[in-house]
């Protein structure tokens, strides 16, 4: 049987995210605090398409987890060019750490980067339950019980922090990117789920801006608490428009939701836009290229 020369063909068919994945791995691995670097999702399984996200699990020395998370927004902005501060990932499964989602331009396109920062002590258990491709495996320094407790406490407190209007705006922008991907792929069930999540984020944004001390859970008593001023009625009008649309959106519905949200933020909590003006202009430009 003759030997076939397949290397050039393999190279030509590599996932388009591979250079970005490689660059991000280099960035993250530069810190000795990083003990493990794993890729999960479609890029790990060989099923990626051009819209696939880059999904990393990053093992971090337990004692360094708080400092690492604190530095992450700056690191991703400076080294990777992330458009926005990271969104605290509320979709990802709890694996004892902290999940963040960034939007990073590369080669003229916007990519979704999922970073799950896990305490090093949790990595063996995590590897046993989650399918990943291992890029880096450094022997972590021995973790004391106190250090493991610090990491655990930090992760719990991190997610317990109330979300600000700026964070909720970023959640909308990230979800819109996800939705465009679902629509292009024809993933209607996931699109339905994320569309509902986007409406929920809109409700949360309105409550955070206009009823920050609300005693009511979820969607209860919105009219009683918020529709008592002109600005409140206008914002609830936006929410009414949002939930009156189709169950599974088209791309134009998603774009309209983003613009409606930006107008809502401008009206109800303009300080949330402070410092994000250029990022939002860039986000719009990249979205057109998606």
């Amino acid at each position, binding site marked *: 049987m003759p030997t076939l020369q397949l290397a050039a063909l393999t190279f030509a068919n590599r996932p388009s995210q591979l250079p970005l994945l490689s660059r991000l791995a280099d960035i993250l691995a530069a810190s000795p605090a990083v003990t493990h670097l794993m890729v999960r999702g479609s890029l790990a399984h060989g099923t990626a398409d051009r819209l696939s996200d880059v999904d990393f699990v990053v093992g971090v020395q337990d004692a360094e987890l708080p400092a690492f998370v604190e530095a992450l927004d*700056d690191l991703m902005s*400076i080294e990777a060019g992330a458009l926005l501060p990271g969104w605290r990932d509320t979709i990802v499964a709890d694996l004892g750490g902290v999940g963040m989602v960034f939007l990073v331009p590369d080669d003229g396109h916007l990519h979704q980067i999922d970073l799950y920062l896990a305490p090093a002590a949790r990595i063996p258990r995590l590897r046993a339950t989650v399918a990943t491709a291992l890029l880096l495996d450094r022997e972590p320094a021995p973790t004391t019980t106190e250090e493991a407790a610090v990491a655990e406490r930090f992760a719990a407190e991190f997610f317990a922090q109330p979300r600000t209007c700026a964070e909720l705006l970023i959640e909308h922008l990230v979800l819109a990117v996800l939705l465009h991907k679902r629509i292009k792929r024809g993933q209607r069930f996931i699109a339905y789920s994320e569309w509902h999540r986007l409406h929920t984020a809109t409700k949360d944004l309105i409550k955070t801006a206009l009823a920050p001390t609300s005693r009511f859970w979820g969607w209860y008593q919105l009219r009683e608490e918020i529709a008592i001023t002109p600005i409140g009625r206008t914002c609830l009008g936006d929410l009414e428009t949002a939930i009156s649309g189709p169950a599974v959106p088209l791309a134009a519905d998603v774009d309209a939701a983003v613009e409606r949200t930006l107008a809502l933020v401008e009206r109800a909590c303009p300080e949330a836009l402070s410092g994000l003006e*250029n*990022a939002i*202009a*860039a986000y719009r430009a990249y979205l057109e290229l998606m």
Partner: protein
Amino acid sequence: MDTLTAVAGQIAQLDAVDSAQLERMRHEALTARAPWKAEYGAYQSGGWWTTSLMNASGDASDVTIGDCAARPTDLLSQMPATAALLAELGLNYMWVRLARLEANAFLWEHRDYDELDQVERHRLHVPLHTNTSAFLVTGGTKVHMTGGRIWRLTPTYAHGVCNLLGPDRIHLIADVYADDAYRRLARRPTLHPGSAEPLPSADQAMLAERLQAARGMAGLGYTAAAERMLLRLFYAYALPEGAVYDLIAELHTSLGDEEAAARWASAKRRLLALTA
């Protein structure tokens, strides 16, 4: 001298470019099969690419500029709208390039040596593809070169350029010798007040917070990122000349790395053309 007047001496808007022609030029710049060449100097982050439209050799990949009688490259022959504009202007070209600045790319604060030259020449920019996060900073003021005009840059102050978030910024850059055609083009330099935006001043508490954040990043092993975090302050705040280099030296001193501190003190002198 107010800020706008001071900046107007550094950067000015000259004639307008016809919008339909500009759109064709933009299409050409974004679609031409150009041999982009990376230039990685000490004063930039990477992400700065150029390709020549007129130069000494006629080879588009020859991008190291110098005095010459420029002739069109093979690339310009694929770009008729661009060639038409250059011909209409009728200038005495020394070198004409396309320059592409990627997202998250920076030319760090520096001063050019051009004022030492004996030959009168000028640098003209025609923005073809840009975004609001791409701007030049000089004298504590940021200037976003909007499309639609020819801009003249004569930066004798320390200055820097960035494209924070992208997409790519592409400018046509023409270095031209002064002659009657140039003087006609430059007869009425202006700077629209809306084009120049003073950056906020940086207070000591903010600088201390950023220095502390840089220490935290360096403590995690991300020393180069910590340096770049401080370099980027030049694009966010009006700072005294060279302050970002002083901050980096201070960072290294506080980390006990006197050799790195001395290296950045030296870099400051070199990049800002300081003689002392």
